[in-house]
């Protein structure tokens, strides 16, 4: 096999002048991600390779990346990155943030503006600390509120691109190769990278509507369409989340925040809420599992994610970045997992081509890949910094989990 890689260059017929719109966007996209569980930092060259080779999964209407561990010097500050329509709005955003806390440092996000991407917004980065009267435990909730308020306060002229600690998302309207070049990914280093290329089909793409969708340290990239969007959105709105970005993927980020951060539900259990086994399967489980599973489905009935999806969620729980891969329970969108020879790096991608691309690379992006597998439909793959693989994606529900029940419910009506 030739080692030369040729990226097919499709003409960009669909690169339209996308206005801000409030319609929901449906996606069919390419997703890739990797994590080095030893925490070794690397730049964005590899993720760019993984995503850009999935070019027929995108149509030039959006791409984006997320990186974890990129601001080691400011790791305790929230990095607000703003997409603003003009300078005036950007200044207002700064005033808004200054009013709500302290900006220790801010800068223009370095971009290659000479590339001439259409409708380039103002992109700005603020390192932010909540005011002293906010308890440290309440920081995250404070930032979520601020994030939502910011999205809601500028007549759709400014949106938060990301606002996490020691992590960020970089996204925009263009092909993935354009966006990678635009943000100069080679200048950032992280132990975990996510990359997304987009094929929105119902409405034009937009800068804020590109993936990843971020909230705190959650970054979600998504291929698919959430048919339960309305149900999920109405559930989340009860708890202060505002779905203003017009894309179904948004709800996934907020649902992870609601269940995993706020309700402190372990990720493998939360995955069962988003993607529960069928009742026929539940009925065959041992009693403890059956009871737990039914309670999960009942309590979080509005958090069930329906429709085809393949997602990668970047997270940071207790200071440890973790990469979560998940598909819908029918697996109507592809997702593969790969492991490097040294078992230190784990990759996820929509297609095996991404792994092959790394295998064939002769530069620093080269990876020796020892194992590739497809996780089971609806079963999470989780790899975490320091701990390696937490869930392989091949488990049955609750496999490997010692489950107990504190108090058994009475039999109904007895």
């Amino acid at each position, binding site marked *: 096999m030739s080692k030369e890689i040729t990226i097919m260059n499709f003409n960009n017929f669909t690169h339209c002048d996308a206005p801000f719109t409030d319609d*929901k966007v*449906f*996606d*069919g996209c390419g997703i890739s991600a990797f994590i080095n569980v030893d925490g070794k930092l690397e730049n964005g060259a590899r993720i760019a390779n993984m995503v850009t080779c999935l070019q027929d999964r995108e149509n030039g209407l959006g791409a984006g990346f997320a990186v974890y561990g990129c601001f080691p010097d400011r790791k305790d500050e929230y990095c607000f990155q703003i997409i603003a329509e003009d300078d005036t709005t950007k200044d207002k955003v700064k005033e808004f943030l200054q009013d709500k806390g302290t900006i220790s440092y801010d800068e223009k996000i370095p971009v290659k503006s000479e590339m001439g991407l259409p409708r380039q917004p103002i992109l700005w980065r603020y390192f932010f600390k909540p005011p002293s009267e906010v308890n440290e435990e309440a920081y995250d909730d404070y930032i979520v509120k601020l994030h939502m308020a910011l999205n809601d306060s500028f007549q759709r002229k400014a949106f938060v691109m990301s606002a996490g600690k020691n992590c960020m998302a970089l996204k925009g309207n263009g092909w993935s190769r354009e966006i990678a070049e635009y943000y100069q990914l080679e200048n950032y280093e992280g132990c975990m990278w996510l990359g997304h290329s987009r094929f929105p*089909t*119902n409405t034009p793409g937009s800068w804020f509507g590109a993936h990843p969708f971020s909230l705190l340290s959650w970054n979600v990239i998504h291929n*698919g*369409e959430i*048919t*339960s*969007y*309305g*149900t999920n*959105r*109405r*559930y989340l*709105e*009860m*708890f202060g989340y505002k779905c203003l970005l017009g894309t179904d993927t948004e709800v996934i980020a907020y649902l992870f925040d609601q269940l995993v951060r706020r*309700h*402190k*539900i*372990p990720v493998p*259990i939360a995955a069962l809420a988003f993607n*529960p086994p*069928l*009742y026929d399967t539940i009925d065959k489980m041992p009693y403890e599992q059956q*009871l*737990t599973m*039914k*309670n*999960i*489905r*009942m*309590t*979080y*009935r*509005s958090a*069930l994610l*329906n*429709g*085809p999806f393949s997602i990668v969620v970047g997270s940071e729980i207790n200071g440890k970045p973790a990469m979560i891969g998940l598909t819908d*329970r*029918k697996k*109507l969108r592809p997702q593969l997992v790969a492991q490097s020879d040294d078992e230190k790096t784990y990759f996820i991608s929509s297609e095996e081509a991404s792994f092959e691309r790394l295998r064939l690379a002769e530069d620093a992006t080269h990876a020796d890949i020892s194992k590739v597998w497809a996780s089971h439909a609806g079963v999470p793959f989780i790899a975490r910094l320091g701990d390696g693989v*937490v869930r392989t994606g091949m488990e049955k529900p609750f496999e*490997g*989990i*010692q*489950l*107990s*029940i*504190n*108090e058994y*419910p*009475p*039999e*109904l*009506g*007895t």
Partner: protein
Amino acid sequence: MSLIHKTFPKFKVVVDREKCKKCTRCVNGCTFGVLSFNGERIIADNEKCVDCQRCAVYCPAEAITIENYPIVYSPHGTYTERIRKIDWFQSSTGGVLLASTGTDLPYPVIFDDIVLDACQVTNPSIDPLREPVETKVFLGSKPAKLDFDVDPDDENNITMRTRYPPNFEMSMPLMIGHMSLGSISFNACMSIYKAVSELGIVAGSGEGGLNEAFYPYKNHLITEIASGRFGVDLNYLQGVAGLEIKIGQGAKPGHGGHLPGEKVTQLISETRMIPKFSDALSPYPHHDIYSIEDLQQLISALKEATRYKIPIGVKIAAVHNVAPIASGIVRAGADFITIDGFRGGTGSAPRIIRDHVGIPIEVAIASVDERLRSEGIREKVTLIAGGSIRYSADLIKAIALGADICMVAMPVLLAMGCRFCQQCHTGNCSWGIATQRPDLVKRLDVDISVQRIKNLFHAWNEELKEIMGAMGIDSVESLRSNRDRLRYLGPNPHIADVLGIKHVGE
């Protein structure tokens, strides 16, 4: 002699003399005293005919047809035939007019102005015959969150700490509405209770107590505590699927029940625990509930009495302020709340109330769901909606507007043979459904009725799955309150705003 009281019949029974075999089956079948045999031929007193169709259905020679009475009412857009008849009739009787079933006035049905979504290209639709599509729901209160303890030394050692409130597991998001023994017959009740037990869903008992013969089915029944407290004893409270405090009914908001003494037979007397032939009048309000605080006390008392093992709910009629009332009920501790829309049915109600009081269920669902969400308490409660859920399309739209479960009654009566003649309040039901006359009750074959009810619900559930499959949704919880999948295609776009749905094309 004055004849100013005279009005013309609505219907005319036409007997084809050539076909008629004079077997008099129609005479025996007629329960409204229309038909008689004079030795030579069948004659009809058209004045009494209600178009129950019993005679026509059972005529072995197919000799009977029923027609509109051929009289022309001089046309007038304001004083319609209906209005004129009401005024004539009340001039004769001086009384409050009674009626049954839901209102017969042609109010616009908002359900019919809503269209549904389906998947194309970007998302595969699902064929429910090939892939699982789930319609299971749970009736009862849900906690706002689940608490798990994770062992700090071993993250795989997980304990579920939440004590779960009682929930009844239902195979489909459908229940049969409350029709008491009294409003319908023993055989009709038996058919309904057997059917729901076999279907794995629930039925309402109505306010008429629970006959001992129905005890085997009571774990599939929601028994009703109404203002008359008829038949309420320990057996009525324990071992049931749910308990419901009935505040109101869609067909007669603000009204109690009325079962005339002549219908209080031995059976009804035993079941309701009232003297034979005494009027069973349930008061308009509960005389121990004059406020939301009082309701809270009764809910608490019932929870105590049943040791927190049974979901306790409250049923209200859909009235203008239904949303804040519902919110108060949830805060008073109800596990489920039933809302009955103004087109909902009745066995007997003052016609003026039935036809003019309340709001449509579509709007009530939307505003209650929205209100509970704005207060962050929607997930806690099961929202049951009824009052003119006519067929599966209404069920699907009601769920997408925000209901958990739909309550159905009239279609169940249709399944049992009802012809919709709207004479339930007379107690003369020729099909053995809304009557207490033993000779008529036995006309209703329980086994056949059970099968027909099961068929009907099975068909609706399949249609629900078909629509969900087309939407790319494989579990009914993802349809619930998913208003994005609805569009309004009707005459008044403001309704779309009230329902929280977009107009077609948006």
